[in-house]
């Protein structure tokens, strides 16, 4: 009876986890999904509490209470910006838990004088090895993100060698303990070695790549719980563990893609070779932030007001039709779209008008500079398509600039700016444009038409 109850709650929990995760992949359902997962967790815990092997609840109660007390502020206080390191740290905690459980299990059996079976030992080892690697790794990651530790890749001569040795050590001890589970010293040494390896693993990776690393470690800790599941024959651990393991892995791969870095490059590129952080450096040492179409698409999808600023680049790319399409999609999702046509955009008077008219964009969506400039403050996104000089703040700020005094479109006043151009080359006036280096600006590099087509497809998925 009691057993069926436990099992039932476990079954429900795992289903909730799966559904929750699924929803989490749809922006509009994400929150509900997360809540489902939380409920699932509740089921799992309650189910567990009915486990016959649990006889003494005092420590449990204490632990739970204390945990809540610590967890709540962690959840509510942390500033959004500190998100990544926060995630890393809480990951440390769950990994720690997994590891400790493993240790407790091992200790108990040894203490009881009945060393665990080989099979079980293997499981325990996995649990503990992955667990400790994660613990150590996440702490380092958090450090780098918070910049307690140098966020730049830390490398030293013979690094590969050292890593190799440590790794070998872990493996040997692993094997050894499986063969002879009674060798506690080897067991505990392996824990130490794993911790060291965890540090080694993360140290040489640049701060910019940390999110990927954290996601990956997440998948490790998932596998750790999974191993626990095997070890103590608990299904919910098994399922959610493997769920976590798989999703963590995919996620980390997706993330490195989104940062257009190859996954292996992030991880193993790490060893030895200095990895560059995403984003190109310029003469003045300013960096531009380049984004992928997915991100840009999302920004546009959830924007209330988008102001499109077409320029000569749109003409060169003959992207006018694609622009219309995109605008229509944004409007379909309830956003508003305005086209800001600068007096000298393009290469002839009315250049933009001709093209936008050809693409059948109604006149009443076109606004000239004076009409639209005041709207930028409330624009969520200024979408700059192959324009450059006409949005160059230098015309306002820099008396030395050849275009000083020319009125420009206030793209830089928008909440965020997305710039579509092929590279960093200058426009007609042949001058640098500081807008591209603004922290609210993201550059979507590539031929305008290609980028737009990309955006259009992404919008469909969002």
């Amino acid at each position, binding site marked *: 009876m009691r057993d069926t109850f436990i099992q039932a709650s476990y079954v429900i929990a795992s289903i909730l986890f799966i559904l929750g995760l699924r929803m989490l992949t749809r922006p509009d359902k994400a929150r509900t999904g997360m809540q489902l997962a939380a409920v699932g967790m509740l089921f799992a815990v309650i189910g567990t509490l009915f486990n016959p092997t649990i006889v003494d609840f005092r420590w449990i109660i204490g632990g739970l209470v204390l945990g809540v007390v610590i967890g709540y502020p962690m959840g509510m206080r942390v500033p959004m910006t500190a998100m990544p390191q926060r995630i890393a740290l809480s990951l440390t905690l769950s990994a720690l838990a997994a590891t400790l459980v493993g240790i407790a299990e091992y200790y108990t059996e040894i203490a009881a004088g009945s060393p665990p079976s080989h099979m079980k030992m293997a499981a325990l080892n996995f649990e503990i090895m992955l667990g400790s690697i994660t613990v150590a790794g996440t702490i380092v990651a958090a450090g780098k993100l918070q910049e307690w530790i140098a966020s730049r890749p830390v490398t030293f001569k013979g690094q590969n060698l050292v890593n190799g040795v440590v790794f070998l050590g872990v493996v040997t001890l692993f094997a050894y303990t499986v063969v002879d589970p009674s060798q506690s010293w080897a067991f505990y040494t392996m824990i130490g070695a794993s911790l060291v390896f965890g540090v080694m693993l993360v140290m040489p990776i640049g701060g910019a790549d940390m999110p990927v690393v954290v996601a990956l470690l997440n998948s490790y800790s998932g596998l750790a719980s999974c191993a626990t599941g095997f070890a103590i024959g608990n299904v919910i651990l098994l399922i959610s563990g493997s769920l976590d393991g798989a999703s963590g892995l995919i996620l980390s791969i997706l993330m490195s893609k989104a940062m257009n870095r190859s996954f292996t490059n992030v991880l193993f590129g790490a060893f030895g070779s200095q990895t560059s952080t995403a984003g190109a450096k310029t003469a003045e040492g300013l960096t531009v932030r380049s984004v992928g179409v997915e991100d840009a698409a999302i920004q546009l999808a959830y924007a209330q007001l988008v102001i499109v600023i077409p320029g000569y680049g749109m003409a060169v790319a003959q992207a006018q039709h694609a622009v219309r399409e995109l605008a229509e999609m944004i409007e379909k999702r309830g956003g508003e779209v305005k086209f800001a*046509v600068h*007096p000298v*955009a393009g290469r002839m*008077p*009315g250049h933009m*008008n*001709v093209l936008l*008219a050809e693409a059948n964009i109604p*006149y009443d969506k076109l606004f000239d500079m004076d009409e639209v400039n005041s709207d930028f403050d409330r624009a969520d996104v200024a979408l700059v398509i192959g324009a450059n000089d006409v949005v160059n703040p230098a015309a306002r700020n820099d008396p030395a600039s050849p275009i000083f005094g020319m009125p420009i479109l206030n793209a830089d006043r928008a909440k965020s700016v997305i710039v579509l151009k092929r590279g960093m080359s200058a426009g007609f006036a042949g001058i640098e444009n500081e807008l591209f280096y603004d922290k609210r600006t993201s550059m979507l590099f590539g031929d305008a038409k290609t980028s737009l087509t990309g955006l259009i497809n992404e919008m469909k998925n969002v």
Partner: protein
Amino acid sequence: MRISVPTETAPREQRVALAPDSVARLIKQQKLEVVVQRGAGLRAGFRDDAYESAGATLAADAASALGGSPIVAKVQPPSPSEIAQIDTGATLISLMRPGQSADIVALLAGRNVTSLALELVPRITRAQSMDVLSSQSTVAGYKGVLIGASALGKFLPMLTTAAGNISPAKVFIIGAGVAGLQAIATARRLGGVVSAFDVRPAAREQVQSLGAAFVANELVNESAEAAGGYARAQTQDEAARTLAAIGNHIKDMDLVVTTAQIPGRAAPQLITAEMVASMRAGSVIVDLAAETGGNCALAKPGETIQMHDVTIIAPLNVPSTVAFHASQMFGRNIVELLKHLVKDGQAQLDAADEITGAMMMTHDGKVVR
């Protein structure tokens, strides 16, 4: 069988009844013999050698072009002198101004010439390819807008320039038939903001199908459409309400092109002197219905006048000013008609035929209409 094409003699007529490509078709596909008078096509941009290489034989003068052919194809109605040169018993295919050309018709009957009036091609899908009204209206609609745009002191398209923002011109097309629709399309192409009006309900959807706005929906009504998609004359109060509607829409129009016609009657007057006075200085009216009296009260057919600072252009025979393509289309219409008429080398002039019958003005020496 031989068919001949004389040079048009009417003033301001630059077209020719058959363009070289049509000649070639007649010769290749229908094994006809074609005679073209020297220089007949020159003003339309067809040199004599083009006709020769198309397989036509050139006739030195009108006499040799008109005479000796069982079929004569012309654009404009024949002059008495021309009629005199056509063989008796021959068939003449040309525009005839039915109703306004009793004398000519009489002469033709007298000479026992069977004459087919191209204006009378029935409005049936099957006959559409023979319908010169359609083809020539197409030309008129296109050219009408060009004339207006050239006369207008404004840009049609919207332009945002370093020297300020040019707002697009407002174009109003009255009568959305073949010419009207073509005018709408052309004005839209040039970037104007186009609105249009017509009495036939079908016209509304057609106007919108070209991306233009339809004015005064409430006015159109089913009954307005007569056979063949033509419009019938309006009743007293329909007309009144129409004028009212046009009146308050026309005020802030920059370019107005009118194409409203009612077959066999004078064109409806849709723009009054007051309306003109109410318009902005510098605006332009092109009255394409001039041939049948014009849609604008002030229009002087064939002239361009300035009144109340408004330019009113009432051009005649507009298609002739796009002579090359107008002739090409005209010729193709005639080819299709001949395909229908000529069976194994013989012209079948069957008064009972749905198409031939409808076109016949004179036959067997009698005026049949």
